[in-house]
């Protein structure tokens, strides 16, 4: 490999048939990825889908069981130091030393990346403004709030000007305002030329940020594309009906409505697909009423990435208090 440190490969992340097993658990099972330099790539999936394991492999913390992975043009198994010099990583849990001050942590990080004192001070100046952490840098990290820890973690990942930034669920557990701030930061960093590989369980996050999205479930990459392409691939509008009981009866009634393409039932929720949702909304309401089912909620909307996930896996990505799980699937040992 002859890519110089300053050179930038066309492909930021490439994997070929990448597998990572933990004994009997196939956390990542044959994933092929091709993330272009300059992209924000959203990696979407429920808890235990294999997102974090894949990030750990790409960040050289884990070796692949089989297959290949390259980051910034370097093989993660054979050239880990070359990879480490070019990546920045903010893992799911902010990996910080609470006994240090923010500035001590960033300075040490800079030293370990071979930066001179002048370069470190320059980067500290830039980063303190970029991640909006300013005066708190001089305080011990144990005094930081969750949002501040996340921002410092991001700053630590950026000290050495990485080409590729891995953000593993960067907004999990953050309040909505902090989440929007992180989104702004991600967009700004990408505008500066950094390729961003973002794992998330938040559909709206992938939708809002990512140029392309890969959907992973049970270790497999099941679909990939731009958010709009993925949603368009469903080819229909979505009507969501929440009923109090008799969901199966309601399903049978709605299936008979002219213009309805597909009806799925998940608990007390009916997902109705129709090419022209607005045209069938009233007939669906009448069908529900006529079969004697009490309707709590009836909504017409554009398809979301959750609908794509539902279509592909038969389950939702559930989000409860920052924890997402796929309905009806078990955890597969996401590390």
């Amino acid at each position, binding site marked *: 490999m002859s890519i110089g440190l300053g050179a930038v490969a066309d492909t930021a992340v490439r994997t070929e048939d990448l597998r990572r097993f933990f004994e009997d658990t196939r956390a990542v099972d044959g994933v092929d990825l091709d993330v272009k330099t300059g992209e924000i790539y959203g990696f979407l999936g429920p808890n235990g889908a294999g997102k974090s394991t894949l990030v750990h492999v790409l960040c050289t913390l884990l070796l692949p069981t089989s297959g290949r992975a390259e980051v910034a043009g370097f093989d993660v198994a054979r050239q880990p130091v070359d990879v480490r010099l070019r990546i920045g990583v903010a893992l799911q849990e902010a*990996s910080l030393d609470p006994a240090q001050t923010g500035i001590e942590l960033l300075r040490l990080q800079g030293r370990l990346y071979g930066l001179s004192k002048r370069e470190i001070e320059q980067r500290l100046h830039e980063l303190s403004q970029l991640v909006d952490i300013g005066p708190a840098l001089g305080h011990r990290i144990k005094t930081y709030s969750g949002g501040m820890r996340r921002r410092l973690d991001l700053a630590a990942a950026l000290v*050495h000007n990485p080409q590729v930034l891995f953000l593993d669920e960067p907004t999990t557990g953050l309040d909505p305002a902090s989440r929007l701030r992180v989104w702004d*930061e991600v967009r700004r960093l990408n505008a500066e030329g950094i390729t961003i590989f973002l794992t998330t369980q938040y559909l709206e996050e992938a939708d809002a940020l990512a140029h392309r999205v890969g959907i992973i479930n049970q270790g497999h990459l099941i679909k990939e594309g731009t958010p709009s392409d993925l949603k368009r691939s469903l080819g229909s509008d979505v009507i969501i009906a929440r009923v109090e009981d008799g969901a199966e009866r309601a399903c049978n009634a709605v299936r008979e409505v002219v213009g309805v393409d597909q009806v799925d039932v998940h608990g007390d929720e009916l997902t109705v697909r129709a090419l022209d949702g607005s045209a069938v909304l009233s007939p669906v309401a009448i069908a529900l009423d006529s079969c004697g089912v009490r309707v709590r909620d009836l909504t017409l909307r554009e398809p979301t990435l959750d609908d794509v996930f539902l279509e592909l896996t038969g389950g939702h990505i559930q989000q409860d208090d920052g924890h997402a799980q796929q309905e009806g699937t078990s955890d597969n040992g996401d590390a």
Partner: protein
Amino acid sequence: MTTATLDHAPVRARPAGFLADCIGIATRSIRAVPREIEFVVPALVVPVFFYTINIGALGPLAEANTGLDFKAFQLPVAIIFAVTGLSRASALVTDIQNGYFDRLLMTPIRRLSLLLGLMMADLVLITTLSIPVVIMGFIVGVRFETGALGVLIFIFMAGLWGLAFTGFPYAIALKTGNPAAVNTSFILFFPFAFLTTSFLPLDNLSGWLQTIARWNPVTYLLASMRSLLYGGWDFYDIGVGLLAIGIVGTVSMTLAFAALRGRLKRG
């Protein structure tokens, strides 16, 4: 939110170099010590306590029966009590648990320096903590027959011994990642520190204890340190003491670096 922009051009990551990596880790570790007063206090209080008790309770009896200067005889014991088991292993476990160790692993740092840097810090701390114990000896009237150079070698040997012993808690820390397991590593200290000539010379120990003490490397370390105090320059004793440190150090470091290799396995 401000709108600062990054100036990427001048800053490029590169390997820092092995020594710089070690110094970076060591500096961070040393800086943390004053913030963890609970780490330093036992290392100062325990030797002073035992030294005072031992010379107060046993001194007259031991001196009457053996003719020893018991204050000088006990000073190496006090310093061994001060430095044995002193390490940053518990901080390493904290790093493993809070993910900071992983953050370090994602940098281009040389893996060996993750442990060697901590050990460099330990050597500095152990040596520093030896000095008050030696001063305590001076205060109660202990003198070195070998003079100022003897004092320096005395402290140097204490530092080497303390460093040699650190391999055990680091091995446990890296193998288990468990703070409770690291805390129990002090149990290793007891046979080393008590099944030896800590209270009486080898010839005055009872049969079974004398046999065990002959196999205990600390016996030879104490003999070499005592020779600096009241035996004059005895290079044989000093050499045997250094050999004893070397044997313990080889065992403990082998365990520690094997545990590091295990911890770093990515497979």
